[in-house]
């Protein structure tokens, strides 16, 4: 593998936040906050630069660490999917950082608080880890990235230090640790069988030994636990229930996507030569079950925050519908391209929509002092922008045209019909209806005239603006011409020359 021009961009996108995190630790809460805010434009510029370089060059951007090329050295390889995820991460982290200033900011004259001191470095750590998880091209580096992601996200869940959130954090940590040791065992088996861990080299080798198949199975199960696909989703709703809104947004929008991207790289990179249609049907079956059961749980949930969390469980299911579609057709066919774009756009649009939804839910919970859905009456009068944000994000999750969610679901639907697997098309349509049901519940309750509605006092406009901005992005993605999604096709491993 050769290094390409602009390879330093994705490398810096990984290095800058982690360096800032190390520098922020001795600086204290106040200056850590300023440092994080100063990092945002730099990180966004690096992500945009990477995306432009990938799109214009039409090839992945590769950086060789220390000029050693694999198998001896390690490579960073930013393909189209990685560039899209870098951009998503930069925008979502930026929005969350601005939103979180009200909760974790240290105002002039106030003493610094423990939560504020913990929050900013952890946010930088999550950012760096998610960037590493999408650009690293070495299975062991990816293991380290996944662990960093867990170690940074887990403390965010229990920032308030109460017993319930600590228990939720411990449960999350146990699921994540089980997932990562299974993944690590797979790494050992693959190295033993192939002698390299570089994904591109492995894809060329097209390994088919039983040890590699076993390794892929172990790693898939481990990554499913980290992605929270049903039935390994049990840690996700409790983790979200007590977490601050900003942490929930990051966890649902970004953290679980890291392991998902890695799963794609395993199945359609390392194993590109040996598609496993049978196993892929099982994965999509779990995804369909997640859509159904997650949506039903969301329909029955009494608390707004948990409703949004179960909606995440359901939306993750959509991501796995692309597996059988990709596995059953030729890698360079039109249908495979549609399925790949559909999955990638779903990951991106869900990230924006869900971050917006959690932030809106956080604003409502802060104003009402609770988040019981039936008692949200009057929200439409007291905080119209917040409810609008929730509604717009909901439209994108439902897949109502024109929105990012619609583009994703349309692509998946067309790919399912193109691949002759119409049953997945039914799942996509049914899931949209169920999503409409639970979004309606919240909106209907919020638009009623209520007893306990707070006075229409002004909310910090940045908070509402940031959440609305994210929701608008998730909708505007649907206005992009389909050709714009060509970015995520660049450097797909299965169609490597």
């Amino acid at each position, binding site marked *: 593998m050769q290094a390409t021009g602009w390879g330093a961009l994705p490398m810096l996108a990984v290095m800058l936040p982690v360096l800032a995190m190390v520098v922020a630790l001795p600086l204290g809460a106040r200056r850590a906050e300023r440092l994080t805010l100063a990092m945002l434009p730099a990180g966004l510029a690096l992500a945009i630069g990477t995306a432009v370089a990938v799109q214009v060059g039409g090839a992945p951007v590769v950086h060789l660490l220390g000029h050693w090329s694999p198998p001896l050295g390690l490579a960073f390889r930013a393909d189209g999917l990685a560039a899209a995820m870098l951009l998503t991460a930069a925008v979502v982290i930026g929005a969350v950082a601005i939103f979180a200033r009200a909760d974790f900011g240290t105002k002039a004259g106030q003493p610094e608080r423990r939560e504020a001191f913990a929050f900013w470095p952890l946010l930088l750590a999550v950012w760096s880890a998610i960037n590493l998880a999408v650009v690293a091209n070495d299975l*062991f580096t990816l*293991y380290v990235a996944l662990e960093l992601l867990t170690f940074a996200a887990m403390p965010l869940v229990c920032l308030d230090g109460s017993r319930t959130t600590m228990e939720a954090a411990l449960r999350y*940590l146990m699921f994540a*640790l*089980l997932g990562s*040791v299974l993944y690590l*065992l797979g790494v*050992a088996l693959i190295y*033993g069988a192939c002698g390299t861990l570089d994904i591109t080299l492995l894809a060329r080798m097209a390994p088919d030994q039983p040890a590699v198949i076993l390794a892929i199975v172990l790693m898939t199960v481990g990554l499913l636990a980290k992605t929270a696909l049903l039935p390994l989703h049990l840690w996700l709703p409790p983790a979200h229930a007590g977490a601050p809104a900003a942490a929930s947004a990051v966890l649902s929008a970004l953290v679980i996507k890291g392991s998902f991207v890695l799963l794609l790289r395993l199945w359609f990179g390392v194993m590109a030569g040996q598609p496993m249609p049978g196993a892929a049907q099982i994965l999509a079956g779990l995804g369909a079950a997640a859509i159904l059961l997650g949506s039903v749980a969301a329909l029955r949930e009494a608390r707004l925050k948990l409703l949004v969390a179960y909606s995440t469980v359901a939306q993750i299911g959509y991501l796995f519908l692309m597996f059988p579609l990709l596995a059953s057709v030729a890698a360079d066919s039109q249908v495979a391209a549609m399925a790949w774009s559909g999955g990638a756009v779903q990951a991106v649009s869900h990230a924006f929509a869900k971050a917006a939804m959690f932030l809106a839910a956080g604003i409502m919970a802060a104003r009402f002092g609770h988040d019981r859905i039936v008692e949200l009456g009057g929200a439409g009068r007291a905080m119209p922008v917040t409810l609008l944000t929730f509604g717009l994000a909901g439209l994108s999750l439902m897949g109502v045209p024109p929105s990012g969610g619609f583009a994703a679901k349309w692509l998946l639907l067309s790919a399912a019909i193109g691949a002759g697997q119409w049953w997945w098309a039914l799942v996509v349509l049914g899931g949209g209806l169920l999503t409409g049901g639970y979004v309606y519940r919240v909106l209907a309750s919020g638009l009623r005239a209520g007893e306990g509605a707070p006075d229409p006092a002004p909310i910090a406009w940045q908070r509402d603006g940031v959440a609305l901005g994210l929701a608008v992005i998730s909708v505007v993605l649907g206005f992009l011409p389909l050709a714009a999604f060509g970015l995520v096709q660049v450097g797909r491993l299965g169609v490597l020359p």
Partner: protein
Amino acid sequence: MSATIFGLLGAALVGIGLFGMLVRVSGVLRLLSFNVLGGGIFLVFGVVARRGAGAGLAGDPVPQALVLTGIVVAFAATTLAVALLLRLGRDGE
């Protein structure tokens, strides 16, 4: 020959650890199971290093380097979990 024995030992540890992580309810026991499982995996890495050794060398250095990183990561995970368990235990009194 010794590689085979160590490999089987590693497999046994992985099995015991996995069983413990899935079956145990107590946080401390689960954490210990995680460490047993991790130890088994590190042994497997050692076996991989021995079997992939070049002529005249005791072992392939790459898996040995990976094991070192793996041990550091597992240690960090264990300390995090212990810190959480201690906090939970103290709150319970």
